[in-house]
């Protein structure tokens, strides 16, 4: 019988990661798009690191950092009673770091595509930067935000390396679908592996289908707007 727990866990992980990243990325992308500081290239490079780094490298460093043997892990354990290795919260933090560029980059490009005079016009109409951000900038980069959300969600679902390193394969805690497939193949349960793989395959296709059809619709309406 197929165990649906990994599917539920995968969706929960993707959901948490996406929400956290959306909240983090809007101000971060705004800063990256408009800051005049020269040192921002360093932050830009760090944000994009997960795109080129093997997941196992990132997972390895996170594992070291979270471990109770080391300062950061010890600090969390002693003062907050938080253990991040082989736990769901640890998985969420790892996913947030790993999917960061998938949320930040589309939003940053969205901000960059807007004419700077939109912001200046709003300021000259007496509006604060916060009001300008929520009433002018965000509504005009909806398409980019949506792209970021969908990509982050899908990318989190497709994770394997980081999740395996940080979370291992603990049922109901860290065993997500991609790990479950690996386990089932190891155990020669090709039928179950097939079902999980089929679900992920169909899901990935549907997600991309949505992204492209939304993009098409947006580009049509923006012509009509």
């Amino acid at each position, binding site marked *: 019988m197929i165990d649906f727990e990994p599917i539920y866990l995968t969706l929960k992980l993707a959901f948490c990661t996406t929400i956290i990243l959306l909240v983090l990325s809007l101000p971060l992308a705004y800063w990256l798009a408009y800051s005049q500081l020269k040192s921002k290239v360093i932050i830009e490079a760090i944000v994009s690191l997960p795109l080129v780094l093997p997941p196992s490298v990132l997972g390895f460093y996170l594992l070291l950092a979270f471990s109770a043997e080391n300062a950061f892990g010890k600090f969390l354990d002693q003062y907050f009673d938080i253990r991040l290795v082989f736990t769901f919260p640890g998985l969420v933090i790892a996913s947030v770091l790993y999917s960061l560029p998938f949320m930040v980059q589309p939003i940053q490009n969205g901000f960059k595509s807007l004419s700077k*005079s*939109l912001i*200046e*016009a709003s300021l*000259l*109409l*007496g509006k604060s930067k916060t009001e300008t951000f929520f009433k*002018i900038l965000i509504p*005009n980069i909806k398409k980019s935000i949506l792209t970021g959300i969908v990509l982050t969600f899908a990318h989190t679902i497709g994770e394997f390396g980081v999740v395996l390193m940080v979370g291992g394969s603990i049922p109901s805690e860290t065993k997500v679908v991609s790990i479950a497939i690996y386990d089932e193949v190891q155990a020669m349960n090709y039928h179950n592996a097939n079902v999980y793989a089929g679900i992920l395959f169909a899901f990935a296709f549907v997600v991309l289908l949505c992204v492209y059809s939304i993009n098409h619709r947006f580009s049509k309406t923006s012509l009509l*707007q």
Partner: protein
Amino acid sequence: MIVFKIQKKLQAASGEMLLDLDFIIKENEFVTLYGASGSGKTTTLRILSGLTTADKGMITVHNTSWLDTDNKVQLPPQKRKIAYVFQDYALFPNMSVRENLSYALEKGQDKTIIEELLTLMELEQLQHQKPAQLSGGQKQRVALARALVQKPAILLLDEPLSAVDNEMRAKLQDYIIQAHRKYKLTTILVSHDIAEIYKMSDQVIVLENGKISKKGTPEQVFSSRLVSGKFQFVGEILKIEKENFVYIVSVLIGNNVVKIIAMEEEIKDLEMGNKVLLASKAFNPILTKID
């Protein structure tokens, strides 16, 4: 009255340039900034509106200090009460024409100004359309209307008419003059078009490499000698034809081509494309080169 005394180092294409300006604009005056691109016109508007900071200097508007680098006074753009019409109009794409205007309302401000401006700029028919559905001239009117919602005392126009055709241009100039008079504005326009400057401005300030090279009425600035005429128009020479002993000069004034008879000595420093001042003295129209 606007007192403007500013210094700012700029990175121009030709290297470093010092923008060093000192001028006074009277209340309700219509002033045009004229000059080659890169001479500092737009930067002047941006410094006045607070979007760009100056290195040194002071700006006083109607006896209020907006900027005084010696006393560390710097009013943020939000508090300067300036209507600014951008070259690209800067209409908010997510809002309809009416919403663009409503966004500009201050907290608790009377909403009747919206209807008034929609009527004045003839935008009632378009009020529910989004900016992307509008033509260049229509966007221009929306941008002007939106800038006027907060009833500012100063209107800044950064080459607002460069992207529209001649017919539309003439109409928009009328809208601007109308708004200037109705709301008793002090208006500063950046323009390259001498005909436009003649039609609209009381004072022209000519900028050259960040300095004021000439200042005065359009006639003082653009005509080498003063013409006392009964009527005068600015136009562009389309063609000069020889007919027996005289020349026929075709001049484009607004959208009309006017043919003028000229003698050989009158046309000797004129050629196609020249901007000319066409004025009538007694009975014979006379042509004077103004550029």
